[in-house]
């Protein structure tokens, strides 16, 4: 399924059935830049394509229909290993919600490779998908005012690492010392759409 909706006079919203299709179409559209397109923004089920003027919309729409995403080939934008101390404030709560023990939550989180589906919320905040389906948990009923940078968290089908201190409603299961957002780096985001991520457990200190 690939449905194209107009989003104002300079953007298109492409609806796709599944997250994997979003990632695949994103890869196809960014492999060869389309003239007039300034931003391709993947999200959970959609891709927003922004043009620099209304004149670019036609070419963008043709490119969407012409794109032939490589089916079955996992998106590749590098691999990252993220060492985590699993002592998050919501670890016990996640265990209760999932019916797993805390150790089983850790085993599930480290046991499957994740893929960055898209970024948003804050610079460098990657929505990691493809994890163990037993870890699907709702957001906290009340978001925290302050979530420390490096917090490793779960919400819905996603996991994430908070790039910097911010408010947040995800459930915190651990923390990492790895900087996922560094303005001195090029690119500054460690986690980009398509990046494969494996979490590993480390002891504090």
């Amino acid at each position, binding site marked *: 399924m690939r449905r194209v*909706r*107009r*989003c*104002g*006079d*300079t*953007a298109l*919203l492409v609806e796709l059935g599944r997250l994997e299709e979003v990632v695949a179409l*994103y890869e196809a559209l*960014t492999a060869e830049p389309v003239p007039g397109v*300034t*931003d*391709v*923004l*993947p*999200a*959970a*089920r*959609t*891709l*927003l394509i*922004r043009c*620099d*003027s*209304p004149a670019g919309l036609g070419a963008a729409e043709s490119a969407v229909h012409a794109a032939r995403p490589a089916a079955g080939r996992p998106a590749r934008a590098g691999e990252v290993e993220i060492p985590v101390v699993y002592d998050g404030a919501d670890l016990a709560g996640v265990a209760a919600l999932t019916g797993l023990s805390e150790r089983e939550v850790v085993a599930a989180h480290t046991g499957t490779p994740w893929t960055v589906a*898209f*970024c*948003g*919320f*804050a*610079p*460098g*905040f*990657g929505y990691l998908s493809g994890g163990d389906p037993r870890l699907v948990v709702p957001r906290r009923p009340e978001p925290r005012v302050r979530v420390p940078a490096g917090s490793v968290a779960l919400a819905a089908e996603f996991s994430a690492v908070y*790039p*910097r201190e911010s408010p947040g409603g995800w459930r915190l299961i651990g923390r990492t010392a790895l900087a996922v957002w560094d*303005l001195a780096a090029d*690119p*500054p*985001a460690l986690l*980009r*759409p398509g990046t494969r991520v494996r979490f590993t457990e480390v002891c504090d200190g």
Partner: protein
Amino acid sequence: MGDPRLLEVLASGPMTTVQDLGRPGHGHLGVGRSGAADRGSLRLANRLLANPEGAAALEVTLGGLRVTAHGDLLVALTGAPCPATVTRRDGGRRQLGHNAVEPLPDGATLRLGVPGRGLRTYLAVRGGLDLPPVLGSLATDTLAGLGPPRPVQGALLPVGPAPAGFPALDLAPVADPACGDLLLHVLAGPRDDWFAPVALDRLCAEPYTVTTESDRVGMRLRGPVLERAMRGELPSEGVLPGALQVPPSGQPTLFLADHPLTGGYPVIAVVCSRDVDRAAQARPGQRVRFRLI
């Protein structure tokens, strides 16, 4: 080489930021475009000074800025027209024109009063503000916390070298921002089908009032409630400036330059690109009307 040319900030008013045309192309990293809320006014100020259109300038919200020139500068004010007074070092005073090329001599102080209409004034200087770029841009993204820090009292803003070209016009004949009801053209969608069939008519039938909960991220509007037809949760999706996002309250928010990259509430309509600059000049208390095109 003379002494470095600078703008020294004596007072920054309610909200002054450094802005250029933003940082496109980083959306996939979770970084929005940001940049001047009224891009056309920033471009005009730079064109008047023969700067590149995207040179960095000050975006001043509701006036209140005071700056002193170090070195002889040429400046231009665009956007919301403020009373603008220059006091020279010798005590001589004069008013500064709007949409005009004006000298700001060494040691002179420029003071901006509160604009009578519109919200955001752009103060550009020939040569542009010359600060370290962040991801290729001098835009301050207030939501993401990226870009140059907000200029506060005592800040010294270096001015870049003057471009090769010279100003061709002294004055640009440009209409001031509207002071009555502001008419904005919108295109339906992308999620108008999430709303009751009458919602689009309602959006366009009665005016909405701009509330005080308005900033560079967006402006909350108060007016007729836009009722949802679909009750489900929309998975977060990309949005853009001009999008009218409708939370469960039914009162739309009009996104501006520093909007979040994705939103989980449906967008009933999007203000067409040529009207987004005018939307960014709407003041709290002003009314906006939407017309479907």
